[in-house]
């Protein structure tokens, strides 16, 4: 990859994507904002600095794959895909609109650049295992990135997939847990504790790395380190903040899915963003 990283530019891009994501959700009247905003730096790093992809050819055979197993995070991928040129930015205004190609949960059939449908939690990591197995059978060198939610890890199927990937030594599979410590009903430690999360994955024969999911250098070096690991699948536990940079809901359970009833509420969420010096592309 041609890496032209500039911290200030990336900060500005992350702010812009948060601005657009928040507006998309507000326009739609409701949406899963918290888990989209917590992933912005991770997704930007993947799409701008890591992935081998071609926006003009979303189905390029040797591209790296991304499965957003926490499918409700769709808006963060849509914003990234549009800004990378997979589809016109104008489309971003159609989130959840009647007949939209940008549904709340990601859909491989409707949206260019979405590699797998997800939304019913717990299934995406298994699908990623299938993609990783297929790539190995075909002697392909691309990587399969799978983003799971922390609350999603309550699902037993996640651990079935964990066992399978460990057993099959799927070292072309890199999973990332968006560990924002919140799920719909509250903090993960109160609802159903995941700890010791990193040790759980180690016990399932995964290599485990941890990163600050809002620190550009840390994210980039961690993902690159993960790409070099051989003989094991890799889990990156990304420590993140739910609804990052939207002050009125940041790190609050109610950020999981907001309801935006009117213009005033729309303005309230937009005004709570750390940076608002942007214009909308639609």
């Amino acid at each position: 990859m041609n890496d032209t990283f500039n911290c200030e530019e990336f900060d500005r891009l992350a702010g812009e994507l948060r601005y657009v994501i928040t507006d998309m959700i507000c326009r739609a009247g409701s949406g899963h904002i918290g888990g989209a905003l917590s992933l912005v730096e991770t997704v930007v790093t993947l799409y701008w600095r890591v992935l081998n992809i071609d926006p003009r050819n979303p189905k390029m055979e040797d591209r790296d794959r991304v499965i957003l197993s926490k499918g409700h995070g769709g808006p963060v991928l849509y914003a990234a895909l549009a800004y990378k040129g997979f589809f016109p930015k104008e489309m971003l205004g159609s989130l959840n609109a009647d007949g939209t190609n940008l549904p709340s949960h990601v859909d491989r059939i409707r949206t260019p650049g979405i590699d797998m449908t997800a939304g019913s939690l717990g299934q995406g990591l298994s699908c990623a295992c299938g993609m990783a197995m297929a790539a190995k059978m075909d002697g392909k060198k691309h990587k399969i990135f799978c983003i799971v939610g922390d609350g999603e890890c309550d699902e037993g199927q996640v651990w079935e997939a964990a066992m399978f990937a460990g057993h099959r030594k799927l070292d072309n599979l890199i999973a990332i847990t968006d560990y924002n410590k919140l799920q719909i009903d509250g903090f993960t430690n109160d609802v159903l504790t995941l700890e010791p999360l990193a040790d759980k994955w180690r016990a399932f024969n995964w290599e485990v790395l941890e990163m600050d999911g809002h620190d550009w250098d840390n994210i980039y070096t961690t993902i690159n380190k993960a790409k070099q690991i051989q003989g094991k699948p890799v889990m990156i536990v990304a420590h993140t903040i739910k609804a990052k940079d939207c002050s009125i809901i940041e790190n609050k359970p109610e950020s999981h899915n907001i309801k935006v009833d009117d213009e005033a509420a729309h303005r309230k969420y937009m005004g709570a963003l750390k940076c608002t010096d942007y214009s909308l592309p639609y």
Partner: protein
Amino acid sequence: MQANLHEFEMRNVYARTLLELANENPNILVLEADLSKASGTNPTFAKEFPDRFINCGVAEADMICIAAGMAVEGKIPFCASFTPFATRRVYDQVTISVAYANTNVKIVGTAPGITAGPNGGTHMCFQDMAIMRAMPNMIVLSPCDCYELSACLRWMAAHEGPVYMQLIRMLQPKVFDETYTFNPGKAVHLHGGSSVTLVSTGYMTPFALKAAEQLEAEGIEVDLLHCPSIKPFDADSLVASAKKTGAVVTVENQSIIGGLGGAVCEVLSESLPTPVKRLGVPDRFGEVATENYLFNKHGFGLEHIKEACRQMASLNKMEGTQDAAVSSKGERN
């Protein structure tokens, strides 16, 4: 297709056909969830193609989604397990990662209905055809003998899209021969008659055929439609037959709710209201028992099929006046 296929157990034909297909197409894969010996792919397929035989362990949900991921990458995975674990246990995984995502996954439910025998109520699934039929994008098949099974598998491998198929594991009486070709969405007319229409599928078709043949001696002419494809369902053949006979009996190795009997009633109630008697398992769970015990308990063995045909054929004669009323609308001769 070889001419002596009926001498083999159905699961053996399943594995042998997949082996042939795998030799022809490098994308054909077998996925199992620790029941590979039961479904016949181990050792037949596993030994020949160890790299294309993926045992997922006792993790059916994982297996279905692994298959979906593989299918997205161009593979053609055949996933098998006992019918309850291939369908109701993984209903959401199949719904979302296979049907909704429209991935090219083939799901095979083995030991359907009462053929689960000694495994009893936990393994005896009577609703897989009903629940799989209710799923958009899903095709539902239930072949009745080895030749039809082999033909269905060949069609499944060539067809791009999700398919669910029931697989009887044991020896099955020969209904067809090596010239059989599977026609998706089409019923097979196995016996001609005008007294009563009998509609069957899968495991019950050999019994239905025997019933039709034996009823000839009584002067009851059975129009027998065998439906290897429950979805899409051959509404045209059913309506044409019902128009001719005016009375319909259905028989299936399933609950009478929502499966073949359900499909028949849906079609007829909208296209040609006709009296229907559904044979199969009423709204009950299975249990450890012999076939005869279960046939007698639930009333869908050979003698029950014959009796239902007699009753429906006579009802048809007795209710000539009602029939005439329908005729007057020009809907039935």
